[in-house]
């Protein structure tokens, strides 16, 4: 008994301490503050998600009452080789965009924090401009650049006696051709977030390292990168989710072609939603994509464990 009481008492103390921690917090105000967001989330996220889950087991066409079909929509999706191909393509697109974007943004941010304030401002504004340009406009601009017979890119290549390339007409090039504007669009925000993270790193670390004779690579490897771990984790997750869900670029630039080479998962689902009489298949595919995204995000979190920085 004694021993068990002794064992229990620290946990009781801990519990009391936790209780004390929350004693002076105003829970009611907190709930009131998050209420509007919860209501909006409930209406626009939670309820549609629950309803989508319900509809994914139905055959539904907007005109007839839903008819229960069990797991058929899910098995149809899972038996469809085009669905797997589109998920694979989504991962390929992530690999083509996210690492390149992170590296470029890191180099750019390093430049920004190392130059004078005024020039840094010019750099930050320049890199952010693509972010405020609509994806559709970007798509059109890049289509003009890529145009086979009158495009800027082939015109430049012609000076080097290189034959015109069907950038968005050749399955070998098309995915890369839409990855470039995706990187261009995503660079701005990624860079600014990295700049903010770099500015936040205490200058003393670098001063101490400089006194020890560390060079740029060593400072980057042992100070900058470890200090930016959480930011990189955040950018990795959001970059991954944004890239695999990209659909405006292929929709406008290639329509998913040639030969489905740019049909990313969301465009695949969108095309089914647009063309199918019943919406069950599209909803089931969307939910399965949700599972894929959730799983990958969880794995990334697991590998790059988020933790508080030790200042």
């Amino acid at each position, binding site marked *: 008994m004694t021993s068990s009481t002794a064992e229990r008492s620290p946990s009781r103390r801990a519990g009391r301490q936790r209780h004390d921690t929350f004693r002076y917090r105003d829970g009611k105000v907190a709930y009131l503050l998050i209420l509007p967001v919860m209501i909006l989330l409930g209406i626009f996220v939670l309820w549609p998600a629950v309803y989508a889950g319900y509809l994914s087991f139905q055959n539904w*066409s*907007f*005109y*007839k009452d839903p008819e229960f079909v069990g797991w058929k929509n899910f098995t*149809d999706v899972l*038996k*469809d*080789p*085009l669905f797997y191909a589109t998920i694979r393509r989504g991962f390929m697109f992530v690999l083509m965009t996210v690492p390149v974007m992170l590296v470029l943004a890191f180099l750019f941010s390093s430049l920004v924090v190392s130059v004078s304030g005024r020039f840094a401002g010019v750099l930050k504004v320049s890199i952010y401009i693509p972010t405020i340009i609509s994806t*559709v406009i970007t*798509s*059109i601009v890049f*289509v*003009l650049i890529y*145009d*086979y*017979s*009158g495009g800027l890119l082939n015109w430049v290549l012609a000076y080097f006696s290189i034959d*015109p390339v*069907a*950038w*968005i*007409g*050749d*399955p070998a090039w098309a995915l890369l051709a839409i990855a470039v504007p995706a990187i261009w669009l995503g660079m701005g925000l990624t860079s600014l977030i990295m700049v903010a993270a770099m500015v936040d790193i205490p200058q003393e670390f670098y001063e101490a390292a400089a006194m020890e004779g560390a060079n740029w690579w060593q400072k980057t490897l042992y100070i900058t990168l470890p200090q930016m771990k959480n930011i990189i984790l955040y950018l990795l997750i959001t970059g991954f989710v944004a890239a695999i869900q990209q659909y405006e670029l292929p*929709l*406008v*630039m*290639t*329509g*998913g*072609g*040639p*030969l*489905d080479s740019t049909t990313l998962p969301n465009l695949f689902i*969108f095309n089914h*939603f*647009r*063309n199918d*009489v*019943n919406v069950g298949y599209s909803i089931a595919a969307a939910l399965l994509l949700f599972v894929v995204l959730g799983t990958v995000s969880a794995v990334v979190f697991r590998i790059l464990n988020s933790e508080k920085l030790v200042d």
Partner: protein
Amino acid sequence: MGTWVRDTLTPAQPRVDLREITIMQPTITRRHLLGTSLGLAAASVLTACGSGTPGEPAPTGSAPASDGATEAAAAVTIQFWHRTFTPVENDWYTGIIKQFNEAQTAVKVVGTEVPADAWDQKMKAAQAAGKAPDVYTHPGSIQDAVTAGQLHELDSVVPAEALAEIIDAAKPVSEKDGKYYAYPLLLEPQGVLFWNKDMMEAAGLDPEKGPKTWDELFGMCEKIKPTLQKGQYCISPAQDAVTFAWSSVGQQYNFAGHTALKDDWTGAAVEDPGYEALIAVYKKLWDNDYMPKQPLAAYVEGKDFGEKKVAFKISGSWMLSEIGSDYPDLLMKTGIGALPNSPDAGDRTATTLGNFKWVIDAKAKDPQAAGDFLSWAIAGDPALLVPFFVTTQFTKVPVRDSVQKAVASDEKAAKAPWVKVITDEIAPTAIPEPSYPWDVSVAVGTAIEAGMKGASPIPAALATATKSIQTVVDREGLAAKAPK
């Protein structure tokens, strides 16, 4: 592939929605084809039997009576959506709505012109919100829409005599299980060969004589190629999977004697020498640089042909109306003929016959008012429809005898030499779009694109198509849906 891009980039250009002619329609019997043939022949021969006065509002007929009570009660409002087409077609749609609204006061029609490339998503969003338009235009087959309960039947809201006027060739796209669900406006060949007579002449070829076979076409391209400047090509055919999916069905029939599914719809019928030969001709166009490696304009558009970037263009018969509208100087220099044939095609056609219909939504608030508008506009006075067919350069075929006669009697018909080619040579033998699901056609389109571009060997591309089609057959339970 290029359609979205081109559509987006060239907003001022007339557009024909690719999807408008992608959805499939049911099988037509020989009787139907004979009916079309006779109807078309009648249209081109009987030139003295015109009726009505073009442009003049017809008596309201089946339209609601206009009296003081209804005026005071304010009109029932009908929402009508139609797609963006060529300027002359858009004008006709605007005009017919205006005329209807002026002719009576009981029903007020609010027309909305929807950009063709935005149609599908806008309609889906409206349907999801329960706000689909009361009346709208509809291409292709009605089978899926009827099965889904999307369309209101017309027998109760359109006069029986108006429904009886629909020619046999158009019945499969408007009728299902003895009930009418759509009123057709037109039929049009989806695959026609156009050529620039000046460019033919410059290459020492007879400008009046198009190629009858693919070998003849290759020979002509070989002669034309040296005369071309940078950025010009011999031919602009379809070149992406989605466009091939719908535009090549007639050519599949021409080369193989059948389309993509077995007769009992239990599986694919594409691993066949005919399909291999079809892909091979496109591969030859691609490999020899007779065609551009990226579309210069969408299949449905005539921009590349109008700008003289190509000597030949494969498109639907509607392209001529775009040439007449946007490149009038080129109109009389444009040759038109049937698509080249496979060596052993015999008398098999190489094109499908597309269609366009008006339908009433199953959730229309006042189906009778919607039916009154539809009946008045396209099932009533033929004179109201004549401007549509005249301004589109006689490239479309009316689906009512009375309209065919009225159109044929227009004086401009005699001055359009291509009328005879379209109505007498191409349309009568054209086959209907298939009624099997769109995904089947996409699988074939993908195989043609893959084989043409060398992304995979032709037999492998067809083997992949077979697998994809089998997935659709199993998923949709097609064996039970095969036409009897």
